């Protein structure tokens, strides 16, 4: 077989996917970047200047970062013990079923899943009714349309995700590490802190990074549960193309969000690598 023939085959095989990705992924990103520098009929930095001088826009970015970090943190803290229970306390033959049970709610529609929290958190919803009936409250709590509601909705989703990644990590852990630690005289707590936790860190970081990226780019949960009392970045972006039809500003805001995500990615990657050496 001649070299040119292999290349011809390669072009036919790899070409369509490369072309598609270039045309509908790379070109749109470039178009978005170019659009973000337009305004007033020509090239300009207006959109970025607008962002930097408008306190409510900066506020949206800060809100997004706060909510996302809180959500990621709570999700890790809640999911870690659950992953441990699944991997180490549930008998081997039941683990598959338990795991299925953990991810089953993933298959509800994402939009509907956020909405179902509204049923619980609404003023006359299940939670308030239960609290009022039990006598713990005499006034219904304002739960819907708050940041708390957004956080609850996100945490619900990411517990499932993080439990999976951390569980997978626990399963790779050889029991001999723990035995060795015990033989060397480590207590249960010491073994956990110095052996188990560092070894399950990759699972935590993969899940946490996924949660961060998915949460900071999500529009559904903050819009539905948090409402528009306080805006997060995705809500601000959608508002630009909806009500105001300002595509260049929306493009600039999207690019800013993308840069924030990239920084998080770089920070995560470096940190992970450091931990491994």
């Amino acid at each position, binding site marked *: 077989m001649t070299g040119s023939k292999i290349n011809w085959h*390669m072009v*036919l*095989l*790899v070409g*369509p*996917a*490369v072309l*598609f*990705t*270039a045309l*509908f*992924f790379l*070109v*749109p*990103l470039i*178009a*978005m970047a170019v*659009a973000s520098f337009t305004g007033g009929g020509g090239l300009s930095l207006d959109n970025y200047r607008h962002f930097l001088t408008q306190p409510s826009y900066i506020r949206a970015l800060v809100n997004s970062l706060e909510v996302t970090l809180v959500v990621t943190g709570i999700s890790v803290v*809640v999911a870690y*013990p*659950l992953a*441990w*229970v*699944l991997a180490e*306390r549930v008998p081997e033959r039941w683990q598959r079923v338990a795991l299925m049970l*953990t991810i*089953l*709610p993933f*298959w*509800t*529609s*994402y939009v*509907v*899943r956020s*909405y*179902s*929290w509204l*049923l*619980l958190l609404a003023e*006359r*919803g*299940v939670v308030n*009714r239960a609290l009022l009936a039990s006598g713990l409250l005499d006034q219904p709590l304002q739960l819907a349309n708050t940041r708390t509601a957004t956080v609850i909705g996100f945490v*619900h989703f990411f*517990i*499932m995700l993080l439990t999976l990644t951390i569980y997978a990590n626990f399963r790779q852990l050889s029991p001999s590490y723990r035995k060795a630690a015990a033989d060397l005289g480590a207590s249960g707590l010491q073994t956990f802190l110095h052996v188990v936790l560092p070894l399950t860190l990759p699972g935590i970081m993969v899940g946490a990074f996924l949660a961060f990226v*998915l949460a900071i*780019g*999500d*529009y*559904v949960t903050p819009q539905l549960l948090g409402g528009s009392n306080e805006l997060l970045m995705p809500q601000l*972006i959608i508002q630009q*193309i909806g009500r105001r039809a300002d595509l260049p500003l*929306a*493009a600039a805001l*999207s690019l800013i*969000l*993308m840069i924030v*995500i990239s920084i998080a*990615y770089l920070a995560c990657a470096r940190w992970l690598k450091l931990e491994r050496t």
Partner: protein
Amino acid sequence: MNRFLDLIAGLYALVAYGFIYLPIVVLVLFSFQASRFPLPPFTGPSLRWYGEVLGDSKFTGAMVNSVVVGVVSSAVAVLLGFLAAYGCARMRDRLGGAIRALLIAPLSVSYLIIGMGLVVLFNWAGVPKSLLAVGIGHVVINLPLCFAILYSQMSDNIIRLEQAARDLGAREWQVLSLVVAPVLWPALLASFVLSLTLSWDEFLIAFLLTRFETTLPVEIWTLLRSGLNPKANAIGAVVFGVSILMVVLAELAIFGKGTKKS
């Protein structure tokens, strides 16, 4: 000590699963509500809202749209991903690495940004908002997954198998369709089902790229604008049912086959 630990573990799992399942139980329960608000007290059971939803052509039409967009875009994503994975597995040079990096890249970008990019591009190119535009968007998000799954399955064994087939006189398309595809059948099916479920559930890109004729998640979103509505509960329960059916079918198709072999 161990007993105590088991007790704590059990309690923790109970609380965690309670939290995970609480909204779903409430959603499904109030889909059988008889009165106009999906709020306590429960007045059902009644199938009133299921009747309204399944009798409303807006929702059944959107459901059909979602299935069409999902099936077509997943098929395209699997086909492109399969060809590229097969080609890339034989490229051991730097170009191969660059192509792999490009094909995986969309995984690390938010749907919001992918969707915004397409909005800007289509706006410039004069492509109208349509189901076709959504389909393209869904291929963009699913192609990297299909490629990654199928690439991971292109082992040296398959390369050897392919060489044997070629030595026996098979042409390139015969190698692909008669040798490689049948061997990779479980992975192909798995990537198709994964794409299908992601497309079926995808909201943001569909929301940005459609106007009148749209997919089910966007139709549900429009319904939710008017506040709490038992119709939304009924659709949610139906979507949940359909998704679980797909997962069970995929499980049977993929793992059922696997256990028979071993």
